[in-house]
């Protein structure tokens, strides 16, 4: 780990987990460490640093550099301290005349084939080779370099065949083979940490070189996913961030939390002045444990992209060009309009949308804005369109609306059941941790219509892949329960003690019905019954079984039912309340858990307490000094419907692009167009802003303080590393707007907002910024009962008391295929892009995914005359769009798949407005479509483009 500038100690080898302790002596000092610890690490524990090159504590010991040699009394030779485990009573010497001489000799050999261009090298001052040369006292190199890897021409002026040019194909880092010492750290990082196995050592002996992929591959064409683990592991300048090459080494680091997915990785933002040099995954981040993916590690360029809007803007009508104004003028304009609307159309005619991308404190303020200033409950958040069924389903069955485990739990899991999630693309750092466990022998079951990257990979393969037809989740989950119940594989003791036995009897009667058997649903789901039975048996009897699920579960008309079915499976088999098991929703956005916790839903105050509860309202009425409406407000789809009807007229939308991300784009557009004041608070003029009257420029996660809550309920600190480019953090903007509306808010720091949250919300009662500072992070509930937070939930009993079994009747969606629309479209994500792509499209990540493509099975393509790369028209009952097709058997016949990262495609023009029965979560994952060859953009795309470019005009300053 190249951490020498901003040190974060490297212990050389990973920590041992043994409970047995061993005492030994190193250089005369006694040290006690767990059995299995390396001598190198034991020495590091007492501050003795043994020189090393090939060892780093993120990787298993390798023992190739021969620099960390030590002597052990009574043993022969000089063993490598990294590969030699401690033993009781041994006496180790790390430094004496013999060892010094040996190390110098080794170092001389390394340096004889290394360019001595330190002053112009990107790693100058941040190079372990340089440091080790210093540490061993290298003063002279006796070997004359004849054959080298670093001279482009040999001594006679001929081209040197051993010299390889730099590989600059990856947009974020460069590979310079001439500086490589072949320590293997990059190759091992790719294997052990990331699990991609994209790198290898090619050749042998003096010809050994680090190679990405095969002979003719570059980093870009290899399997490399650009996670940066190799760059992090490299001790020299061989693999270096291009930003470091451009800028120089950083001089300070601030620990903060990634603003992409729900894994919530912690990073050290390494700075020089107020310029961000690089993001380095933070070793002590409890979600990521020092790992990262391409988005968090490298894709932060959007923060300084030229498209970012830095001045507030207003306009009378959406047909006018934007006018840049001062903050004060924008606030005045927005407040006057919103007040006017409320006077004219009533208290309920305006609302807010909180952002799952912003901090907890910001989400809290936005819902407070509507409840305490607008005086209604019209607040919703993008969780509506992703994990609202999780909130409902887990709330009903277990009593909390959140995942039951922490991510560390995966290290104890024996069977992972992954349903409707593709962590390799959506939650890459978690996927790496899961894959590590799979390589250790855990079994995997994947339930997904598509053969995702998760199904098979380097050194593992799913035991069962249930490639179901989109929309039949409930049938499959109930069939799994059927097998468990009828084959008596359930855990009766767990059910008797932890769940309601009568409800279980009722549920058992329901699932045992033969119409739920795998055989009975085979035709419906397209999954062979034997596979379902095999998967059920494995889940029930394979040891610690954990369920990880994603939007493929929730974004259905029966999303909530599937979540309940999943909870039933975990309760049936007793897989709740200990490490390695549980029900784990993989939340989409960085703070979607937090925005839900903060009371963003129209029916719930912070902490998931219904607005109907008088005692809960009383808490806030007292804190805020207002009367709170006791009727739930409008959900996003209701707001849009009401807007079209003419009763909803004003919206404050923070950090969400509903036009692109919400289903049935045409309906969203019509709703927005019908409003009289749409305030968009965002980094960019997003698609929703095409229909806005006021634009508040937003700040990035690098520019503010706050907290994000990840998928494991972990509250992580977000720290300001630079001043907001547009002047104010988002919470300050919301406060200014609230005050312009007549409120009297006086927060001067987000910690005060957190104090208010803690004071009013029982599950956050113990959370303070001081605690987050000392503990790094904390998992809610954090209160008197659990002052240090709660990594695992439902240990001795469910939060709701007894676990509740609920019947899960399969009801087919109304969205059906027919002669006009014979194919089923399902949507998903890709690794390099994030959600609607507002950020990642503005980074170099586009080299991996420049446009959305439609995956279609060879059979479906052939009967339609579609060839690879053809432009095709994708039409549903709602609308149509065009995009390019790729032919693959990852999808089954009858199923097509695409991503929704690019506004040019607008996959959501096609999706319908069917939604989950309980929570209105849209049914993104199932749309009946037809696909046919096409020449160019659809009519909608052309009109939309014209409207967008018209709407994005900004008037020149006068």
């Amino acid at each position, binding site marked *: 780990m190249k951490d020498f500038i901003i040190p974060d100690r490297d212990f050389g080898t990973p920590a041992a987990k043994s409970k047995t302790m061993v005492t030994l002596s190193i250089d005369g000092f006694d040290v006690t460490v767990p059995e299995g610890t390396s001598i190198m690490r034991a020495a590091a524990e007492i501050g003795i640093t043994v020189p090393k090159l090939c060892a780093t504590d993120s990787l298993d010991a390798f023992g190739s550099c021969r620099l960390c040699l030590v002597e052990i009394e009574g043993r022969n030779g000089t063993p490598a301290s990294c590969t030699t485990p401690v033993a009781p009573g041994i006496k180790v010497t790390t430094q004496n005349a013999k060892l010094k001489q040996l190390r110098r000799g080794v170092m001389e050999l390394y340096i004889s084939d290394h360019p001595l261009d330190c002053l112009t090298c990107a790693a100058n001052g941040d190079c372990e080779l340089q440091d080790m040369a210093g540490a061993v006292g290298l003063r002279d190199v006796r070997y004359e370099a004849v054959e080298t890897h670093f001279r482009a021409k040999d001594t006679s002026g001929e081209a040197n065949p051993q010299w390889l040019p730099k590989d600059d194909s990856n947009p974020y880092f460069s590979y310079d083979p001439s500086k490589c010492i072949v320590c293997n750290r990059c190759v091992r990082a790719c294997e052990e940490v990331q699990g991609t196995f994209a790198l290898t050592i090619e*050749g042998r002996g003096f010809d050994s070189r680090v190679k990405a992929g*095969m002979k003719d591959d570059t980093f870009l064409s290899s399997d490399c996913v650009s996670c940066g683990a190799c760059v992090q592991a490299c001790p020299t300048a061989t693999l270096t961030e291009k930003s470091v090459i451009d800028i120089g080494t950083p001089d300070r680091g601030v620990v903060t939390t990634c603003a992409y997915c729900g894994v919530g990785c912690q990073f050290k933002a390494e700075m020089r002045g107020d310029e961000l040099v690089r993001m380095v995954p933070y070793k002590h981040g409890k979600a990521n444990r020092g790992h990262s993916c391409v988005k968090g590690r490298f894709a932060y360029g959007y923060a300084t992209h030229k498209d970012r809007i830095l001045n507030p803007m207003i306009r009378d009508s959406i047909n006018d060009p934007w006018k840049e104004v001062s903050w004060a003028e924008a606030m005045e304009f927005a407040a006057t309009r919103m007040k006017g609307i409320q006077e004219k159309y009533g208290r309920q005619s305006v609302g807010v949308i909180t952002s799952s991308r912003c901090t907890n404190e910001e989400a809290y303020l936005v819902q407070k804005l509507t409840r305490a200033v607008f005086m209604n409950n019209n607040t919703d958040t993008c969780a509506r369109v992703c994990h609202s069924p999780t909130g409902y389903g887990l709330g009903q069955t277990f009593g909390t609306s959140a995942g039951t485990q922490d991510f560390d739990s995966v290290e104890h899991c024996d069977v992972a059941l992954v349903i409707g999630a593709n962590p390799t693309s959506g939650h890459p750092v978690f996927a790496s941790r899961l894959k590590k466990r799979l390589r250790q022998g855990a079994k995997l079951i994947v339930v997904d219509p598509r053969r995702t990257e998760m199904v098979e990979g380097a050194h593992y*393969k799913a035991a069962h892949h249930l490639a179901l037809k989109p929309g039949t989740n409930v049938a499959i989950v109930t069939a799994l329960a059927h097998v468990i119940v009828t084959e008596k594989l359930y855990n009766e003791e767990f059910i008797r003690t932890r769940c309601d036995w009568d409800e279980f009897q009722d549920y058992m009667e329901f699932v045992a019905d033969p119409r739920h058997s795998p055989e009975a649903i085979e035709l419906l789901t397209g999954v062979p019954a034997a596979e379902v039975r095999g998967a059920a048996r494995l889940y029930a009897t394979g040891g610690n079984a954990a369920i990880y699920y994603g939007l493929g579960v929730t974004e259905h008309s029966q999303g909530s039912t599937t979540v309940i079915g999943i909870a039933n499976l975990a309760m049936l088999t007793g897989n709740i309340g200990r490490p390695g098991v549980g029900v784990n929703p993989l939340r989409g956005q960085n703070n979607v858990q937090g925005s839900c916790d903060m009371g963003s839903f129209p029916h719930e105050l912070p902490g998931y307490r219904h607005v109907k509860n008088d005692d809960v309202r009383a808490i806030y009425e007292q804190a805020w000094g207002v009367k709170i409406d006791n009727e739930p407000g409008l959900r996003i789809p209701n707001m849009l419907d009401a807007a079209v009807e003419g009763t909803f007229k004003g919206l404050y939308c923070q950090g969400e692009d509903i036009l692109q991300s919400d289903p049935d784009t045409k309906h969203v557009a019509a709703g927005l167009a019908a409003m009289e004041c749409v305030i968009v608070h965002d980094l960019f003029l997003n698609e929703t802003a095409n229909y806005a009257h006021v634009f508040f420029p937003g700040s990035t996660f690098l520019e503010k303080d706050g907290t994000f809550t990840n998928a494991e309920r972990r509250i992580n600190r977000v720290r300001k590393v630079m001043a907001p480019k547009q002047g104010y953090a988002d919470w300050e903007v919301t406060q200014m707007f609230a005050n312009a509306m007549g409120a009297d808010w006086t927060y001067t720091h987000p910690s005060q907002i957190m104090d208010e949250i803690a004071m009013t919300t029982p599950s956050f009662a113990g959370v303070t910024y001081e605690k987050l500072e000392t503990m790094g992070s904390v998992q809610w509930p954090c209160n008197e009962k659990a002052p240090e937070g709660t990594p695992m939930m439902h240990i001795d009993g469910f939060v709701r008391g007894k676990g509740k079994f609920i019947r899960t009747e399969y009801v087919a969606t109304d969205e059906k295929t027919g002669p006009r629309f014979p194919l089923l479209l399902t949507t998903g994500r890709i690794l390099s892009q994030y959600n609607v792509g507002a950020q990642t499209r503005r980074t170099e990540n586009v080299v991996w995914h420049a446009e959305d493509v439609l995956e279609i099975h060879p059979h479906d393509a052939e009967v339609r005359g579609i060839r690879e790369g053809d432009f095709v028209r994708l039409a549903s009952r709602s609308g149509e769009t065009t995009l390019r097709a790729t032919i693959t058997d990852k999808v089954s016949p009858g199923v097509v798949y695409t991503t929704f990262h690019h506004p040019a495609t607008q996959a959501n023009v096609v999706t319908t407005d069917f939604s989950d029965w309980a929570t209105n979560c849209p049914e993104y994952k199932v749309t009946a479509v037809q696909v046919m060859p096409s020449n160019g953009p659809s009519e909608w795309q052309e009109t939309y483009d014209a409207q967008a470019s018209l709407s994005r005009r900004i008037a020149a300053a006068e």
Partner: protein
Amino acid sequence: MQDDAAIIARVNEILAAHQGMEGSLLPILHAIQEAFGYVPQAALPIIAQDLSLTKAEVHGVMSFYHDFRENPAGRHVLKLCRAEACQSMGADDLAAHAQNKLGIEWHETTKDGAVTLEPVFCLGLCACAPAAMVDGRLVGRVDAARFDALLEEVR
């Protein structure tokens, strides 16, 4: 060079024949070299997929062993031992003679495609050094004259 479709078909047959075998990567590479006379690059991703490996790993293994060749060899492969015992018995001179006579360097093939010259480290025939191997057949006590005779044989 054969076309990719034919290669893929044959590779798949070889993979099927090795199904379920433990540690099958080297036997598969040998079988492919046997079938084609070399290991076509196009085979690597297919092998990787079949064994739940990556193309980088297969490339790493293949490139470690000099015996696996990326391109077809000449009609005959002539290997000269370069190890210590043979060197002490004149292998260096023999090598120079061979390269001179054939007009090629190590690992190259004569223009007519008849002979590929390869160095090899120890054929285990030290007692009869310098040693050579012609298309898999061991030959001992090779001097310039015997080398020329061998060449006559294969040309």
